């Protein structure tokens, strides 16, 4: 058993020091009827690295790898190239095998990274401050709704129809128990996002408006008027960004008046990983910082006056405030935040701008090519690297038929909105710097065959 250093000699010497006869004596407080006399039946015994690797390798090979085929899936998780140095650095044992920095004198590495990460996220979102991460975008979104309730003391949240339906589901699950009222309808087949509808719906009971930017169908709308209307009514604007690379090209939500900006940071540094672990981003205006959930890293000095960093404002958090905390979150996505921060440092302003421009240009090329395929219509009037095409048949079937041809062609709206029949012909297509012209040609060719 390669992970267990104790030898039988050690064990008996230690039992001796403790003053008991056998290991069973140490379990004397466990009632006999609750103890298993032997190892659990029906499970295999320990296995060598080689044997485990064979088993896991066999399972891994049963999956269609995104990088092996023309690949166009997005809808909240995006495939970008991650520089080799990112994965190398996050595997340094001092990062990988550290804990939450509760002893700051020997955790300055993690803490400085968090301070840099918070600054990067705040700047990217156009906000004053950001926290040290949440689990993912969907849980960050719910936490923002709860934070708006605490700030405004109102319980009605307006959710844009363009919000990722999984994020809506998470909010609905929680709202059922907290008593928050959520106003939401599934999206309409419309070239523009639903900003005017939201503006018209704001009233004196509204705590917040939650709008995704770009939205689930890839559409981009100016949030300024929405922010103004929300503020005039005493409500907050929460913007949700599921593709932060977009902010290399388009105006950040904070600059348009959003009070809280949350997002999914997976597309920078983290990778697809079948949905997790991902990285919840959370930023807001300075005046709301004491209502924020999650950990915050702050600058201070040590006993010699040297600059250093600590976790701070922890009186918001569960380990101090217990039932009065702003959230129950403890473990967050520290290592994913590190990956994000390293990738963002490698990119810098210039790299992110170039990356965003390339993503957009490839997406425009793909949209133009797809529009030329008979039976395909483009929904969006605007988009960044993701758009919706409308087909005359159930896009779920089309996506499966494309997969049978080794093309991962997009996310069908039927999968995302199973109850909305009018959306069943929609396919959300994401295009990034990893997409080649050959990939685009393959998707067009595949669609021609499948739609024929």
């Amino acid at each position, binding site marked *: 058993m390669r992970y267990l250093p104790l030898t039988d000699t050690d064990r008996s010497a230690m039992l001796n020091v403790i003053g008991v006869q056998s290991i069973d004596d140490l379990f004397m407080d466990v009632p006999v009827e609750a103890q298993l006399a032997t190892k659990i039946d029906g499970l295999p015994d320990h296995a060598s690295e080689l044997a485990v690797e064979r088993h896991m390798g066999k399972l891994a090979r049963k999956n269609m790898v995104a990088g092996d085929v023309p690949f166009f899936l997005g809808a909240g998780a995006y495939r970008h190239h991650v520089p080799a140095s990112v994965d190398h650095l996050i595997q340094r044992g001092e990062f990988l095998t550290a804990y939450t920095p509760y002893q700051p004198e020997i955790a300055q590495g993690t803490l400085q990274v968090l301070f840099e990460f918070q600054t990067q996220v705040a700047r990217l979102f156009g906000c004053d401050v950001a926290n040290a991460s949440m689990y993912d975008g969907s849980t960050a979104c719910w936490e923002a709704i709860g934070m708006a309730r605490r700030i405004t003391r109102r319980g009605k949240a307006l959710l844009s129809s363009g919000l990722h339906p999984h994020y809506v589901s998470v909010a609905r699950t929680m709202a059922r128990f907290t008593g928050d009222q959520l106003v939401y309808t599934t999206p309409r087949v419309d070239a523009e996002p639903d900003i005017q509808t939201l503006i018209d719906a704001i009233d004196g009971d509204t705590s917040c408006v939650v709008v995704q930017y770009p939205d689930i169908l890839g559409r981009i709308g100016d949030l300024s008027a929405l922010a103004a209307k929300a503020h005039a009514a005493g409500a907050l604007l929460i913007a949700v960004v599921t593709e932060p690379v977009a902010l290399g090209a388009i105006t950040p939500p904070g600059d348009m008046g959003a009070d809280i900006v949350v997002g999914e940071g997976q597309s920078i540094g983290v990778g697809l990983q079948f949905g997790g672990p991902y990285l919840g981003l959370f930023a807001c205006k300075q005046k709301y910082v004491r209502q924020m959930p999650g950990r915050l890293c702050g600058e201070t000095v040590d006993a010699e006056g040297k600059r250093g960093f600590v976790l701070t404002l922890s009186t918001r958090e569960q380990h101090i405030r217990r039932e*009065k905390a702003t959230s129950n979150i403890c473990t967050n996505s520290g290592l994913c935040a590190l990956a994000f921060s390293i990738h963002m440092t490698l990119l810098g302003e210039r790299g992110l701008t170039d990356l965003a421009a390339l993503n957009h240009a490839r997406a425009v090329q793909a949209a133009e090519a797809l529009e030329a395929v008979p039976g395909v219509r483009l929904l969006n009037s605007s988009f960044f690297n993701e758009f919706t095409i409308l087909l005359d048949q159930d896009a779920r079937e089309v996506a499966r038929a494309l997969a049978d041809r080794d093309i991962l062609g997009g996310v069908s709206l039927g999968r995302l909105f199973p109850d909305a029949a009018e959306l069943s012909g929609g396919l959300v297509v994401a295009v990034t710097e990893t997409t080649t012209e050959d990939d685009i040609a393959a998707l067009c060719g595949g669609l021609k065959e499948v739609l024929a």
Partner: protein
Amino acid sequence: MTMLKEGRPTRPVALAQDKATANPTITGNKALMLEEALIFEIGSHETTGVDIAPAPQVKSRLGGLERRKPIALPGLSEPETVRHYTRLSRQNYGIDLGFFPLGSCTMKHNPRLNEKMARLPGFADIHPLQPQSTVQGALAVIHELAEWLVTLTGMHSVAMSPKAGAHGELCGLLAIRAALEARGDARSVVLVPESAHGTNPATAAFCGYAVEDIPATPEGRVDLAALKARLGPDVAAVMITNPNTCGLFERDLRTISEAVHAAGGFVYCDGANFNAIVGRVRPGDLGVDAMHINLHKTFSTPHGGGGPGSGPVVFSEALSPYAPLPFVEKTADGHVLIEEETAGEHHAGSFGRMVAFHGQMGMFTRALTYIMSHGADGLRQVSEDAVLNANYILRSLEDVLDAPFAASGPCMHEALFSDKGMAEGFTTLDIAKGLIDEGFHPMTVYFPLVVHGAMLVEPTETEGKAALDQFIVALRSVAQRANAGDAALKGAPYFAPRRRLDETLAARKPVLVWTEPEAVAEAAE
């Protein structure tokens, strides 16, 4: 001295006899210990560490929302980036470097095979919304891990999607609430022992319950009589950690479960300490209705400086119908992911979705790799060695450190000490900082709250006897210094990258993001 309410000092105290503070170098570097500036101070907005192909010329479709202002993100070239993060990493303590006995956090060795398996492209490079026929191997991983967890716990089913322990607690309480609602039973109170993790009361409040404390007995366990007396038609659930945060097994858990069930409530078990009993005790045999399992504790996935975790929740038969979406079922045709689309037929009682997509897949591959490596025999040995190591520490130090529950019997996987017996003015924090200078990560301090100046030492099973003996020598020495009132200890650590940090200053004037020095100067004028 500024202190938090649990008595932990938050400001460093300057000391006259501080000899180690003299800084001999102009750079502030100390040989291998290198200072590192912020990326905002060393990077530039023109520098980049990636080569990106030029974008083809196209007509913009950005809807007129092109970014007009710079973001002000500094870039570094690749060599500068590698050096920046390598230097920062060296200011961190990790399990790879040494003993990390953080009680309740289970800092065990993170096998590198786990990392290798999680990075296989077949797991790392697949999208959560690919057609199910193209991710059968991934669904099989989830299903195989689920089977292990159900079998090891003796429970009925498992929800795999919760993202971490606290998220798992939320999952359990939501299922309890959904089950109560389904029988038209509105209950408003959750009982939580004083010794519980802070996440327990926070979670109960987060889903709308009033939280009431259950007292502990003098021997460090839940007060059964007080608990029974409080049970009634308003109590939805009792949240119990077992083994508890004092490192003791809750002997009466089965009796507690029966009493709670008889009163119409449910038993939530915080499984943070499952590593003490895995393979020897099944929570299902103790009447538990829901329990989260921290894959990053019991099953060795790395903590990564604060996350990510993963907190699957095992359920009793009574709660299983309410478990969240999605989950994986094995059928004759292969593995099927049950999502909203098919939930109506398969899982109508589900309380819904807790998270986008399907949970922490990257942690599932690591945990399954670890579990298979240990097998049924190895996992039993894991808990036995963890308990043996903790008792060895308890009995080797109880003569110099107060062990409040030492007379209560053997501890489980962690040993609890208090600050009783230290010289006037000396605190648990001094012990922690003294240990840092000796090259160890301190234990958990000031938790659990039921003990004054608590020190919770969890060695885990992946430490050998030699490592334990070195730690015992070091902690014995530091404890003796605190007991004797050695003033130099108040200045520790002397040899870490930083001396004690001023937490009061950080909280009073929070600086949470970097600001250009010119902007700071302007603001001050």
